[in-house]
């Protein structure tokens, strides 16, 4: 019975791994060379965001140390989040686009970059709500 009526996957199994199937949108096996170039270019942009977060953490920590005041734990968490957000989003996008073409990957990296911007502004707003003043240097 099973051999007479094979399941759907088995019936078209011989044709599915062929090239036309991939051309019609089936995910490819791994990232192409162009896809890696896109990933590296966006790595620099995401790294800029992470660097900005790092400079915020160092600069604001120095400001608090200058007036001899301990920074609130929540504020430290938001500043660490500013560094972590680009790295986490980049990792998620890199993993999510591993079987996508270079063009689709570029779009997703762009959206991820915008999401990093949104999360950064959210965390900065959260920091301002925790520390609603600017320490004069």
């Amino acid at each position: 019975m099973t051999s007479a009526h094979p399941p759907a996957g088995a019936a078209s199994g011989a044709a599915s791994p062929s090239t036309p199937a991939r051309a019609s949108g089936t995910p490819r096996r791994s990232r192409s060379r162009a896809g890696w170039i896109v990933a590296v270019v966006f790595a620099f942009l995401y790294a800029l965001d992470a660097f900005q977060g790092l400079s915020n953490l160092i600069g604001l920590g120095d400001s608090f140390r200058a007036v001899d005041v301990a920074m609130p734990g929540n504020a430290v968490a938001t500043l660490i989040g500013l560094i972590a957000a680009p790295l986490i989003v980049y990792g998620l996008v890199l993993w999510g686009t591993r079987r996508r073409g270079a063009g689709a990957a570029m779009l997703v990296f762009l959206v991820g970059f915008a999401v990093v911007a949104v999360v950064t502004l959210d965390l900065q707003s959260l920091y301002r709500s925790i520390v609603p003043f600017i320490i004069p240097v």
Partner: protein
Amino acid sequence: MAREPDDDALSWGDENDPTYVAAHPAALDEDDLEEDVPVVEVFSSSAVAPPLPVPPSAEADAARAPEPAQAAAATSGAPVAAGVDTAADRDRDHDHDRDTVAERDADRDLAAADRDLADAEAETAPLSSAGLIAFGVFGGIFLLYTVGWLVTYIRNPTDPSGLAGIVQNAQNVLAIAAPALWFIVTLLLGARRRVPVRITWLAIGVVVLLPWPFLTGY
């Protein structure tokens, strides 16, 4: 074998009927089904009809009362006639097997064609009204988010000097564009996905892209 009018009384029209002719439903339209078309009459001979399980009573009749020609042959040259008969039976069995395999292949091809057609229809099916309304609602929410991020940008102007200023300014602009980007890219890359999958991704975007600075005022 001659067909007698009494045979009609024995034809009950299902698959156990020896005179039943299997026809693909697609080959018959409603008129054919309504009228008692002579198709059955034409193809009711056992030579043309597809192989069907012969009822035990028919087999017994055949064994009990052989054809007159066969009976005559049995009296004259029994071994030769018997040998020819066996070979003919074997050929018939072989044809029977071949027909069954061909039918199975045809059925499988038909099923595969039906599946391909269903897949193609699912891919190119127009968006349902509910899906269209849902996408419209999400589009409206993302439009509001864009306004929210724009207001935030106007409220908190940044000095675009130095690397930190440039990055901060770029982030402000990207935050304004983020809802539109998310919406477009979700619909673009998810065009071949099912509608609930796309709606799930749009819902994730509604949570992630919330203009928190606009809502809290900080």
